[in-house]
């Protein structure tokens, strides 16, 4: 059920009695620029910390605790080139607590989004300083998570130097130094007044009541977003390669391929199945051959990024096996290009994707994510199960032949 609250601001209600918790997701979307990712991440942190009525995080936390541990947080994300700030709230259904939590939560969301701790055109100084420090520490500490680090370094290697995608959705430390309590107010104004806004409410809630309550949020009209989130990049002629050395027990070998198949293209579902056969499921060639048969890795998987035109491969290996593993990954791809896979494996992967899709309906956060993606690209969901079943071996090979190796990153403990 969809309602338009203002120009560029839409409310989507998903009534269901399946869950004991209700959920709200509010998405603010705008194209990523060279500078906005860091500012928006810091803004999300400031907004979730305090408000005018609840000027410390403890005051806000106490209010949430009194609402039966209701949960409200803000974070950033990225869908292709679209940078998003998201507010997510979940709270127990009224019928378990004999209290109108829905009314109170929507009031709190109003407070968080429209009454942030801003005075005289600046965010509260001490709060700004601590949140900026925390964000700096968070970004720094990504170094400590070696799997994450390797995947970030791979994407950095993949994206061209002039691409805004080179800046991660969570921002970068260099940009943090340029922000201040005043500039963040401009970031806030821009988000609240100009971003595309989608509000999703899921749960055992009367749609008319939800519409009335959320219509109170004082959103202005805005120019609807016309940019496509899809990211295209001219392929490199030469594979980009980089090796870094750190004191690690296990080396991480990560590869990036360009695959110009995008969300809901005609061969999108074939790409999903291809990725499942390549490394996206436990029935894949990477898992069965690199891990199970050759015993070369604990993990070896692939991931399809259908808004970026990329497939990434991540493995944890012995550094000395690097060449063997890389050759083996290429062989698995060749097999798929040449149609070298069994009908049985194809069916397993299709069934697995269908099972995941159906099981996804039992997870509220998953339902919300699906709906959000559909709204951001203005598409109605096709019949997923039928589309997956339609994929033929020839479709798979066709997709596999579009794969082009672009970047190879190795994090190694051995020089």
């Amino acid at each position, binding site marked *: 059920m969809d309602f338009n609250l203002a120009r560029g601001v839409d409310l989507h209600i998903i009534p269901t009695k399946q869950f004991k918790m209700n959920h709200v997701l509010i998405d603010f979307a705008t194209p990523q620029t060279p500078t906005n990712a860091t500012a928006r991440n810091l803004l999300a942190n400031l907004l979730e910390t305090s408000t005018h009525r609840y000027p410390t995080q403890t005051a806000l936390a106490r209010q949430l605790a009194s609402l039966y541990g*209701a949960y409200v947080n803000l974070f950033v994300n990225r869908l292709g080139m679209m940078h998003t700030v998201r507010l997510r709230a979940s709270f127990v259904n009224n019928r378990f607590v004999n209290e109108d939590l829905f009314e109170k939560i929507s009031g709190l969301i109003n407070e968080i989004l429209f009454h942030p701790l801003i005075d005289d055109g600046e965010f509260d100084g001490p709060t700004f300083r601590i949140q900026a420090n925390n964000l700096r520490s968070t970004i720094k500490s990504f170094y400590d998570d070696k799997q994450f680090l390797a995947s970030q370094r791979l994407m950095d290697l993949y994206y061209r130097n002039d691409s805004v995608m080179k800046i991660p959705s969570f921002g970068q430390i260099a940009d943090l130094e340029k922000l201040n309590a005043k500039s963040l107010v401009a970031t806030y104004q821009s988000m609240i007044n100009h971003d595309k806004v989608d509000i999703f409410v899921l749960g055992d809630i009367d749609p008319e009541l939800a519409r009335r309550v959320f219509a109170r949020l004082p959103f202005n009209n805005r120019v609807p977003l016309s940019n496509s989130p899809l990211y295209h990049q001219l392929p490199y002629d030469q594979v980009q390669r980089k090796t870094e050395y750190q004191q690690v027990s296990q080396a991480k070998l990560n590869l990036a391929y360009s695959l110009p198949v995008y969300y809901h293209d005609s061969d999108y579902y074939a790409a999903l199945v291809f990725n499942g056969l390549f490394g996206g499921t436990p029935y894949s060639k990477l898992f069965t051959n690199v891990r199970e048969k050759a015993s070369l890795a604990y993990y070896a998987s692939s991931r399809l990024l259908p808004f970026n035109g990329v497939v990434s491969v991540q493995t944890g290996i012995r550094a000395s096996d690097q060449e063997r593993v890389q050759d083996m990954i290429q062989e698995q791809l060749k097999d798929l290009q040449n149609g070298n896979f069994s009908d049985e494996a194809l069916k397993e992967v299709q069934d697995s994707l269908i099972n995941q899709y159906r099981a996804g309906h039992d997870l509220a956060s998953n339902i919300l994510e699906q709906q959000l993606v559909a709204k951001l690209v203005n598409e109605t969901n096709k019949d997923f199960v039928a589309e997956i079943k339609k994929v033929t071996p020839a479709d798979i090979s066709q997709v596999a032949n579009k794969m082009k190796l672009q970047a190879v990153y190795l994090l190694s403990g051995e020089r």
Partner: protein
Amino acid sequence: MDKQVYQNFNQSIYREQLSNGLKVQLLPMEGYHKTYAILTTDFGSIDNHFIPYHQEEAITVPDGVAHFLEHKMFEKKDHDAFDLFGKLGADSNAFTSFTQTSYLFSTTSNLHENLDVLLDFVQDPYFTDQTVKKEQGIIGQEIQMYEDDPSWRLYLGILGNLYPNDPMRIDIAGTIESIGRITPKILMDTYKTFYQPANMNLFLVGRLDPEETMAWIKQNQEQKIFAPTETPRRLFKLNDPTAHDVIPFRSLTMDIVRPKVMVGLRGTKQFDDGKQRLHYKLAIDLLLDVLFDDTSDNYLRLYNNETLDDTFGYNFEMQRGFHFAYFSSDTDQMERFADEIIDILESADQQIEAARTRFEGIKNAELGRLIGLLDSPEAIANRYAGDLFAGASLMDEIQILETITIDDLYQVAKDFITPQGISVYQVVPQHQ
């Protein structure tokens, strides 16, 4: 089949212990598409010293056997159980903890067939020299992967401090050296001892018909012949039940940039039964919220003076034979963090007194979180702790939580917090 109705939550659990000893629980969830099934044996990494089934002599098996066994159960002579689930459209997995090993699947189709696969592969051991050797390579990589994970090192580090002479100090997966000593015979002796149906439980949650599902399970089990039940003879004993062997402090250097610190607290209380144990656990959960949650003045003060940040977390773990709590954060002030946490623990009485007005909110928040778990078939089934908590379900937990008062917290604080049980572990950047 017993049926227990939880009216408040519009939910029922069906229970039955089969003639071979296997305990079965079924919890249908209306409107759900998937069924989650988990088969658990009461056997984990700390159970390395025991008298094998139908033998006289005690043995000590190499560290990591429980986890190794978990990996190897999937592989059979001419197939892999993993693929059988795949062919039936299910996702399957397994995991091992200090005291349990679990095998699971999740499916939206072919429930009966998948259920048979689960019961059959876990009840049909097959180990050879060759398959054991291959697994040593894969698990070796797994161990190395965890070696690079500072959060895991921090957690294992504090366990090593709290239990310096007990098996909890060792990684659940063992070491590259110890798994190299595992043989098919060791796996088989261990299997026969701990994988008897009477030492296991099966829990299904989600889309299911209780009568029909129970009939399928019985049909499967009645076709098989099981060796006579013999209660596992574990020889696990804490080196020092009074916790005077706790190592107060150790640190580790890694190639990281943010210092990480963990304070551990080992409890020594013994429990008469599972019910008492569960009450204690829930009271400690509330106690820790009172002392450290984000509604506390302690938290605000330490956050604002940057002793801790958003990475701060704490947890209480109750396991078979031992229990402990830990508190951790990334911080540039490691000593100060530890001092502050210890001060708060040691002044628990005053803290509880000062929290009287906050207590209802804290309890409601905990209730809300537990109710939230009822939306997850995985959470309902995985949280079930078997005999450890007298067979209590998540719904029972919620009902017990409601009865706990602030006055209960004084007693559990007194029981749990002792000076000898406190320890600190740091993971320090190498270039500092």
